[in-house]
């Protein structure tokens, strides 16, 4: 079927727009939505798109490159260095063992050695695109399963390089392999190739540091929005070109480039510029994967293919689970880790086409394996959903966060405990510290804790609503607890625990809004601080000042306003459960305010204190005359 580009674009976009909301509504996640869209519009079903699916897939693989660039951007070099053990250990073992087992299996099934090895290597890889996208969408990339998955995927991306180098060697005598010379590296001796690879890596690091950063500054200064986007894309494309030139994985290069730029001040701009392209290309990629599933082939030998998929995924999962156990991942996270990486990755498509090219595998086998790979990818989101719905709920919800609380060893007793060291608690803590007050800090955001610990700030990871942890933090001897958790639920938990176990502690509690404030009042909290009240009033006072009202007056009326607000809130809190009365009172207050404004009496509380008002004195003086 011949279609114009616009028509094909329309089909792809329409499929995405129809299937993604549908998939999300059904709780399937966007990856599965794209895959389904691909299957439906692919040659096997509606046939809107035909064999160009393969070409599109190659094009869309660029989405994976962008994704790794973005992931790199979020990963500072120091953090990456901290992950070296899981990357090399966990990742290395996974690739080696899985390759060995699958090669053995293929040999048992009667494949020749070279074909078995090629299959082993090809199928040991997992799908960076599907796994990271799914984990990210579920917000569990930073969990220990997420981190382990990421480490393994990163190693696999590195492992592709030697695999690509080994494949020609497997081709054997009958190889049709003629030197295409499509990478510069092919014509070099082994040491030259190594040098070239290292050189490319060095180029990216040095250029990133000394060329790209100043360039970014220049481009940003031009203040043409799309220029920055163009530059961001140019950056990723250039890295890909460079990497392809020396025969390295573009994804790996982009990742490296991202890491180098992770501490640039333009990191967020780069992220937001590349993000939509990444999303679209990845979507395109998933659609292409869905479209490439040859249902005719599958239907002609359903049991062979289903058997192969099941066996492969089982083997991969078992190896992953074993490794996870060795690397001490908790059972619940380990299961997720095993499920997440059990499919075969997008790189298999590339490697499979190589095997065909080099005559390692016959066309028929390649077709079957392509279907198997695509189906295993399509199954992954389903399996992860199954995990989420069936397996995860069996584990205690409280253990959802697998990180164990930090051991607290206090050399001395601190008078203050800060529960929650986000934007709010952070400022309170810094303020206390510069005033020589020592505080024990507990926080529940593991990324934040790591970042702060790296900065040398003593922050303990742990849930302040656990009374044993509070005990360890010195709650029995402390005088004050500052509660500034990220969510209201957490805040209320901590307040309840403190009230029950440490009633002597003075609680100073952050509230986000009026409903939170009411709840805290109900719990008997005396010192409640609405997050935005003071700042907005300061802003209001500055606005008044800029409009010509004296700074001191503005300052005083803002302060008066705050006190009135507190007072009104206390009054309303007492009656808020009586909805009718509450609404009536609010109405009355609004009417009161309106009346005041109408009578111009509002100037009474608006006016400076009576003591400075001389009008009565002036009147009296003039009467005397």
């Amino acid at each position, binding site marked *: 079927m011949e279609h114009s580009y616009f028509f094909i674009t329309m089909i792809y976009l329409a499929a995405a727009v129809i299937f993604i909301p549908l998939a999300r509504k059904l709780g399937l996640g966007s990856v599965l939505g794209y895959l389904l869209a691909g299957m439906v519009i692919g040659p096997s079903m509606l046939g809107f798109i035909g064999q160009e699916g393969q070409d599109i897939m190659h094009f869309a693989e660029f989405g994976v490159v962008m994704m790794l660039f973005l992931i790199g951007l979020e990963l500072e070099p120091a953090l990456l260095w901290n992950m070296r053990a899981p990357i090399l250990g966990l990742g290395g073992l996974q690739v080696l063992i899985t390759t060995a087992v699958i090669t053995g299996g293929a040999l048992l099934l009667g494949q020749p050695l070279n074909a078995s090895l090629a299959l082993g290597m090809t199928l040991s890889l997992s799908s960076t695109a599907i796994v990271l996208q799914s984990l990210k969408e579920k917000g569990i990339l930073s969990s220990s399963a997420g981190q382990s998955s990421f480490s393994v995927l990163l190693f696999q991306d590195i492992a592709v390089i030697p695999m690509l180098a080994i494949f020609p060697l497997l081709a054997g005598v009958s190889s049709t392999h003629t030197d295409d010379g499509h990478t510069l590296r092919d014509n070099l001796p082994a040491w030259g190739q190594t040098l070239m690879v290292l050189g490319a890596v060095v180029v990216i690091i040095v250029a990133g540091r000394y060329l790209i950063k100043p360039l970014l500054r220049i481009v940003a200064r031009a203040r043409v929005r799309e220029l920055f986007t163009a530059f961001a894309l140019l950056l990723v494309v250039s890295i890909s070109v460079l990497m392809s030139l020396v025969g390295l994985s573009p994804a790996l290069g982009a990742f490296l480039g991202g890491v180098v730029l992770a501490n640039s001040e333009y990191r967020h701009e780069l992220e937001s510029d590349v993000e939509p392209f990444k999303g679209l290309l990845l979507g395109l990629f998933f659609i292409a994967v869905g479209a490439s599933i040859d249902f005719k082939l599958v239907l002609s030998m359903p049991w062979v293919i289903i058997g192969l998929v099941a066996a492969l995924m089982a083997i991969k999962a078992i190896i992953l689970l074993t490794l996870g156990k060795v690397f001490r991942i908790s059972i619940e996270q380990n299961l997720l880790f095993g499920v997440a990486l059990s499919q075969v990755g997008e790189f298999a498509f590339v490697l499979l086409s190589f095997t065909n090219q080099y005559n390692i595998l016959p066309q028929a086998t390649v077709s079957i394996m392509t279907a198997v790979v695509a189906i295993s990818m399509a199954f992954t989101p389903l399996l992860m959903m199954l995990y989420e719905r069936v397996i995860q709920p069996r584990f205690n919800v409280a253990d959802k966060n697998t990180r164990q609380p930090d051991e607290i060893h206090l050399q001395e007793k601190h008078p203050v405990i800060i529960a929650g060291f986000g934007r709010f608690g952070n400022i309170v803590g810094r303020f206390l510290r510069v005033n020589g007050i020592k505080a024990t800090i507990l926080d529940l955001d593991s990324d934040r804790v790591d970042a702060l610990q790296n900065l040398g700030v003593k922050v303990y990871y742990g849930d302040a609503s656990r009374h044993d942890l509070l005990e360890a933090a010195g709650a029995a001897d402390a005088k004050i607890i500052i509660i500034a958790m990220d969510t209201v639920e957490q805040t209320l938990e901590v307040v309840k625990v403190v009230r029950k176990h440490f009633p002597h502690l003075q609680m100073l509690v952050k509230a986000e809004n009026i409903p939170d404030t009411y709840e805290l009042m109900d719990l008997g909290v005396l010192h409640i601080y609405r997050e935005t009240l003071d700042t907005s009033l300061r802003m209001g006072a500055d606005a008044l000042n800029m409009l010509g009202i*004296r700074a*001191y*007056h503005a*300052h005083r009326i803002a302060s008066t306003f705050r006190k009135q607000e507190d007072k009104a809130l206390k009054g309303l809190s007492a009656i808020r459960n009586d909805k009718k009365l509450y609404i009536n009172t609010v109405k009355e207050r609004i009417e009161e305010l309106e009346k005041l404004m109408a009578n111009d009496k509002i100037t009474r509380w608006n006016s400076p*204190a009576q003591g*400075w008002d*001389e*009008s009565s004195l*002036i009147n009296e*003086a003039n009467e005397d005359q």
Partner: protein
Amino acid sequence: MTKILILFAHPALEKSRVQAALLPAIKGMQGVTLHDLYEVYPDLNIDVRHEQSLLLQHDIILFQHPFYWYSAPAMIKQWQDLVLEHGWAYGSTGTALRGKRIGNIITTGGQESSYGKEGWNHHSVEDFLLPFKQTATLCNMQYMPPYIIYGTLRITPSLIQEEVVAYRRMLEELRDGKSLTQ
């Protein structure tokens, strides 16, 4: 040219008639720095180092304020308490202000006749300003007689204009080396 620093303090300038009319008259005047304390420190949190450096840059310091309860508004007291540090402004090593002149520019509600033995205030404004005078002495400064605008409660717009002109002329004379006279 003598450099003059006016430390202005009025907590409710928006209600003022005379003080509010005086300020525009010296806006941008050469040799005169107007420092509006309530505007700069609405929270009364005075930047002591900044104030001290301002003092060092000027030869004559003038507190300008309405006469509240026979004294200055709270800001002036806060300023004195914080800025005139021991060891800087007074004490055996406190010589930073030595030789500078200091005085008050005051507006009073009552008429001149009310300030005196026979008036209902029973004392002169100069009498009430004794703490300012002694503060100046302790800080090795020369205290100048106050510049007073009396009777602001009954003052008429045309009289205010006359006061504005006189006020500006007084500052000009002071700046150009003539003595402070009423």
